[in-house]
Structures are given as C-alpha cells and as structure tokens.
C-alpha cells in the first residue's frame, strides 16, 4: 500500500505541472495546496493570483478560502474583482488556471453547475465562480479530480466551462486565447488531450492499471502507446503538505 492519500497524490502531481515564474490563478481546495507546495519546492517565484483580486500572494498559512486575509498580508498587490477579471485574466496575464467540477467529459468540458435539468435541478452544484473565464483565457488549464465513472461521463449535463467542446477545432473557432485543459490529474493516472481534443490516458500512478482506469471512465478511453508510470510523491513533498500546509488534514485526509 502506498503511504500517501489519493488527495496527496493528486496534489503533488498538480504542483509538478507548475513552472517557476508562472502566473497562476489559484482555486479553492487542493489546487490551493498544490500551488503553495510548488512555491515551497521547485517554483519559488510562482506568482499566485487569487480571483478575489490578490496578486503575488505569499500566504504564511494554508488559506481555507480563497479570500483569506493571509493572502493579502505581504502580497505584491490587491485590486478589485473587476480589475482582476479584466486587466489580468481577459487581457491575457494569467498563465495557468486550475479547474474542478462534478463532471468532466471526453473533451474536457466541465460541469460545476447542475446534475439533471438546469431549470429543475436534481443536484444543484455551486456554479461557475471564476471557472468559465479561467477555462477560456488562462493559457494552460489543469484539472484535478478523483477517477470515478460518474465524474467522467461521455458528455457533461451542463458545460460550465469549456474544454474542447465537441472537438479542438470547435473551441478554436470561438477565438478564445487559452489552450484548454492540458492535463487532468486523477488518483489513478493522468489524462491528456490528443490532436482532436479527446482525453486519452497518458500515465498511470504506481499500482494503478489500465483496466481500472477504463472501468472508471464513462467512455471508451484510449490509451497512449507510450504510456508512462508517474514518479511517486517524495518524502519532502509529503512533509511540506502534512506539516506545513494542511496539518489538520482538512483537504488531504480523504480521497479527494
């Protein structure tokens, strides 16, 4: 048995996607942890931007919400939300966005709005928040989610934010500047879009199998020929997560 939780695994692999000097629009929950982990490991110059309007944040504790006061004290700047979404995101000053949702489909479209019919919701979810625009305008988007069949339907009930729509050319035709969801990190492996924008399995985490991944995916998932096995979390990464970032295990205890 691995000595780390599914959430820790996803968090570590998400953190590794970030480059030093990336300008990241940080989301709530595990993405928040992943960015703070990258900042404390390989990306000390990461520019953490929060949709509340905080630029270049240096939080000294793990913020539970993305509007926590620790994000502001010691930050490089603060602006209004309108300024954040216009000067920063719409203008093209955000390199990376993290996204999540209840459903992610074959083309990386995300549903964070509703299960069932919009006007008569079976399950009402929180809705877009910043994600509709982040998915469109951040240069690179990453998604983190536990790998479960209900979370990976062939088509989402409601497209809160755009992946590749019904294929990459369809997204490109809308003129959005972002390159879309480039990596989906799950607790079983990593999915990436092929040339058509369809998500394919490109890596397995240690111990996971192609069969298990395919069983937990709602469409006939294709497997890349050069399938990799990921490097497990290091002791250092786990220590920072457990001791510095989430000592009470609020985000990392469970399976995501």
């Amino acid at each position, binding site marked *: 048995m691995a000595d780390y939780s599914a959430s820790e695994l996803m968090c570590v692999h998400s953190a590794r996607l970030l480059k030093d000097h990336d300008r990241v629009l940080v989301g709530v*929950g595990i993405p928040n942890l992943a960015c703070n982990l990258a900042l404390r490991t390989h990306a000390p110059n990461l520019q953490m931007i929060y949709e509340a309007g905080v630029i270049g944040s240096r939080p000294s504790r793990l913020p539970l919400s993305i509007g926590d006061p620790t994000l502001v004290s010691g930050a490089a700047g*603060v602006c209004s939300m309108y300024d954040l979404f216009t000067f920063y995101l719409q203008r093209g000053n955000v390199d990376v966005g993290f996204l999540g949702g209840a459903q992610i489909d074959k083309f990386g479209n995300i549903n964070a709005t509703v299960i069932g019919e919009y006007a008569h919701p079976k399950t009402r979810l929180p809705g877009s*928040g910043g994600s509709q625009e982040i998915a469109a305008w951040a240069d690179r988007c990453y998604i983190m989610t536990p790998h479960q069949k209900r979370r990976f339907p062939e088509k989402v009930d409601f497209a809160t934010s755009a992946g590749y729509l019904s294929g990459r050319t369809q997204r490109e035709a809308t003129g959005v500047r972002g390159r879309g969801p480039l990596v989906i990190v799950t607790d079983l492996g990593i999915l990436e879009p092929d040339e058509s924008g369809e998500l394919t399995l490109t890596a397995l985490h240690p111990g996971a199998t192609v069969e298990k991944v395919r069983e937990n995916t709602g469409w006939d998932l294709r497997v890349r020929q050069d399938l990799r096995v990921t490097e497990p979390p290091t002791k250092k990464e786990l220590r920072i997560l457990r001791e510095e970032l989430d000592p009470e295990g609020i985000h990392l205890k469970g399976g995501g």
Partner: protein
Amino acid sequence: MTKICSLKEAVQHTVRDGDLVYCAGFTHLIPFAAGHEIIRQGRKNLTLARATPDLIYDQMVAAGCAKKVIFSYMGNPGVGSLRIVRAAVEAGQLEWEEYSHFGMISRLQAGATGLPFIPMKQTAASDLERNNPNIKRVKDPYGGKDVIVVPPLNPDVAIIHVQRCDPRGNAHIWGILGEQKEAAFAAKRVIVTAEEIVEESVIRSDPNRTLIPEFIVTAVCHVPHASHPSYTQGYYDRDNAFYLAWDKISESPDAVRIWLDEWVYGLPDRDAYWKKLGPEVHKRLKISPRLAAPVDYGNY
C-alpha cells in the same frame, strides 16, 4: 452633515420589503451584522444579490427574507455546499438568476458606471447563456468576434462594511476589495457599517484609500465586529471554525432555527453578539499588527 445612526434605524429607513439588496464583500468584510438586523426586522420578498451568497444569505434565506437570489458561486467557500440556498433552489422554493463571477461583477460595473451594458469576450461555454436571457451576444461593431453582454445591476440597497469611515460617509477600505466600490456606486441607497468612525482629517490624511465618497452614502453605522464570521483585514481573523460548524448546523432545519433564535432573534445587536461569542473566540480571532510603510503625500 453627519449620517450616523444605529444599524437598527438604518435598516428601518433604508431596506424595504421586496428590495433588491446587495450585501457586498468577497469573503472579506461581509456585513453579517446588517444581515442579522434585516432578519430581526422581518423583511420579506427580498432579492438577494451577491457573487457568493455565503453564510449570510444562507441565514437570510433560512429566516424567510428572500424570494430570489442572484449569484455566481453558491458554495460555502473552502468547505462545500451552501445547504439552505441549495435545498430551496432544488425544491423550487426560491427563484434564482445566475452568472459567472465575471458576468456578475460586470453587471455591477455597468450599474456603477451608468452604462446600458458591458461587453465581455466569449468563453466558448454557452450553456449559462442559453439559460439566462440576460446574457446576450452582440456583433462587434469593429469587425471582431461577437461579444457577450450583460445589463447593469442597480440594487435598491447596497450594504458595505469598511474599516473606517467619517461621519459623512467617506470610507477607507483595505485588504480584498472585491466588488465593494462597484456595489456602492451601482446602488440607489447605501448603508455603510464601520469598525471605526474617525475624524474627517484621518480620511483626508490618506485619500488614495477612500473607495466610497460621502455623497453616495445614505447611512453610516458604527458597528465593530460587524463582519464576523467573515473578517475585517487588520482587525480580526476569519472564523474558519464557524464556516466549518455551519456546514453541520445547516444540515438540520431544527438546528438552524435554534441557531437563529439564539444568535439573531435572541440578541438586540452586534455588541451583544460579540459579547456572547466570548473570550475564547475573541482570542482565537485576534491578530497581531503588520503595518504598511507610511507614504508621504507632501505638503503643498
């Protein structure tokens, strides 16, 4: 002219049944004291607009104040679901109107700047646009791609909590600025609650920090600790423990009723609420200072 009055008086004179109310603040400076006063005064049929309804609207919906919510993220930030608003929406008991954050604050920006609409670039995600007739698509008159537009939002009342304010209503805010200024300028009437009421000279010593000018303010109320369990930057911390606790309380309608009786109906005002929280909570939320370097405006 002073606009100082009690929060009770401000709500009595400024918030009417059926109003569109915007309690401003993105996580920071959420005006809980005013929300509780609106509950105590039994306001009905309100349309409650906020980017994030947060616990304040969960509580106001639970107390029966609302007929509709307008929002862009209906969750308990960092915790999970906003159970009461969600249940009311799922049961068809509460009307709703929904945007992305950018759509929501663009509506306020249009309202605050006197524009008939505001354009936004396309996002490629069009399901919300299909379900909300307020979100429209228009041709770029300069020949580019079509743009998405939203109409102004002009609340009847905006409620803004601030760090400090003079008796006329000139208000200083620092920390997360959210949509405070936009909500205030968009609204027809504005209630400001302040941690501190200061002399006009304090405001004039640092004019760059004034987000809200006196001439758009209707009432000024001195209400320390008005944003708990949200926070006021530099004054007290966010009560994350309460946000987690509310997740449990709000699972049960009985527990919510008991909570409202104990913490809202059973108390006269925010001072009593803060006292009732007790010294342990006060200690937990206390923060140490971290001062900015002073700026020199120069003596001209």
